[in-house]
């Protein structure tokens, strides 16, 4: 197990929004967190990435309490692309991706030859080599998102955490991004934890799903075990027909109507 959340309670100020959450992530898995809006997915992600300190419970990275590690030590192993981020409009793609090397730099903060190699590799992986000198504000939404992912890749992490990486992208970019994520997982054994809104995409691209509802883990498991009519009714309050996609050997569903 590479990352584990044990009995997490998370809160903003006094308001507890996540209660007693347990999550286990094995090395090399793609794990997707799904659930309705406001159910606490991003909050859980923030705790897993050491941004939000839990009220109770622990997050363990390779069996060590993540808050007993230094920010930098964690950053050498875990890269995170949050939902909320600032885009300094006039940074070039290369500058942004270069900051992925930050956790590995010494006090003098100079790039070595190896750092340059890694930055180039990250740009290549995300197909951004020809954009590297472009300013971020001259990129399309999909390209911009790829630039952020390239920054995470330049961190050379073992775990990549992504909060709704496909939101605001049109469908072709969504697929492109998910295929990239899958490819990274398969070729490098990168462990992926992400939040997705599209349940069908989650089912198709993940080894394991965690469904969060009202700040608690509702259920978890392999997509084919989890995704069924009752599950959708329970978590999302919708009636749906669930089918088997034999080509990708995963379930998919067609929503019918909202139920109360």
């Amino acid at each position, binding site marked *: 197990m590479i990352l584990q959340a044990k009995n997490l309670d998370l809160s903003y*100020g006094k308001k507890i929004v996540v209660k007693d959450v347990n999550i286990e992530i094995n090395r090399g898995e793609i794990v997707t967190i799904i659930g309705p809006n406001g159910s606490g997915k991003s909050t859980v992600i*923030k705790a897993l*990435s*050491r*941004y939000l*300190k839990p009220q109770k419970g622990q997050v363990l990275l390779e069996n060590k309490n993540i808050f007993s590690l*230094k*920010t*930098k*030590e*964690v*950053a*050498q192993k*875990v*890269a*995170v*692309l*949050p939902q*909320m*981020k*600032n885009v*300094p*409009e*006039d*940074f*070039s793609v290369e*500058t*942004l991706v270069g*900051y*992925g090397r*930050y*956790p590995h730099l010494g006090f003098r*903060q100079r790039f070595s030859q190896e750092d340059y190699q890694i930055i180039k590799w990250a740009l290549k992986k995300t197909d951004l080599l*020809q954009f*590297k*000198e472009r300013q971020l504000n001259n990129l399309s939404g999909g390209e911009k998102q790829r630039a952020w992912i390239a920054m*995470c890749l330049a*961190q050379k992490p073992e775990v990549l955490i992504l909060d709704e990486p496909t939101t605001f992208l049109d469908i072709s970019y969504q697929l492109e991004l998910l295929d990239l994520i899958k490819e990274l997982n398969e070729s490098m054994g990168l462990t992926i934890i992400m939040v997705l809104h599209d349940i069908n995409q989650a089912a198709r691209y993940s080894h394991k799903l965690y469904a969060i509802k009202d700040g608690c883990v509702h259920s978890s498991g392999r997509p084919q075990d989890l995704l069924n009519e009752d599950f959708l009714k329970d978590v999302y309050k919708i009636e749906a027909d669930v089918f088997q996609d034999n080509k990708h050997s995963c379930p998919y569903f067609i929503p019918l109507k909202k139920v109360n």
Partner: protein
Amino acid sequence: MIAGKPATRRLTRLNMNKGMKIMNVQQLVEKNKSWNLSRDFAKKLLILSGLLAFSFLAFLISIGQGSLDLSFKEVLRCIFLEHDTLNHRIIWNVRLPRTLVAGLVGICLSLSGSILQGVLRNPLAAPNIIGVSSGAGFMAFVIFILFPEYYHIVPLGAFLGAFISTILIYVLAWKDGAHPMRLILAGVAVSALLGAGINSLMIFYPEKISGIIGFMVGGLSARTWPHFKVLLPYASLGIGMALLFPHKLNILALGDEIATGLGLNVEKTRMMFIVIASLLAASAVSVVGLLGFVGLIVPHTARLIIGSDYRYLFPATAILGAGVVMICDTIARMIFDPVEIPVGIIMALLGAPFFLYLLRERRQG
């Protein structure tokens, strides 16, 4: 197609197949791109050199102009070659220290503003948002009115007032971390409170106002070597930090979550920068009074000119800040000669319209 001598071209055509053609085009593109990169870098270097030239010119003008007019050549000769002429003494004892103080004050205040605009992610942040002006002003007033026999410690009091109110604001804004928005709100609140304090003192002691007005507006008259020595360590601190840590501010600009994800200790970094910003501004204010406007306008202008990458923004801000205060002080000395007007007034009169002009240009472009 690649260009070249006819013979080479023929050879290429002979050997040409699809793969080769693609490779050649790629090489061409590659070449073009590296040229682009160096063009961006060159552009920024050019801007920096331009700013440096402006500041150096401001320095020479500031020293040369006055009741005794000297040419640039004479100025340089007086500083470096002559030793016991009258000109040398005037320049060495009066003008040079005053000009240098102006330059350092410019550096301190504008670097302070630049840091705060980055740390608080707000283009309108300036030293007064972390209570520097109100804190310094309040303490100066209290000393001046209640302990007039200690008038000479006003600079020290102003310095402490500025720094303590920053700490107070920081503590008030803290709640699982010092969020930029809470810092700004706490800053506004504390400043309003101290401002009310200043106003009540003015009402109860109206006869003392004229004595303190110079401090409130900010001016450089009769500033000389001891003032320079007060400022120098802080300005050096600011410049050193600007050289060492531009990456930290760049990363902070990506947002707290990203910055944490990249291994930056956000709260520690933010606190360090706020303390540095406060020290920079407090040292300047303690020497020249409440010269607030520089810390807002110079960093913002520098950002409009050179972009928001702190690797270039820091040097640009420092150089521009030094030049602007030196030139404004020269104008303040000259315009109604022999009467001097406080440099703060000139700064606002010239700075505000220029600033508005820049903003309008930007929006159209």
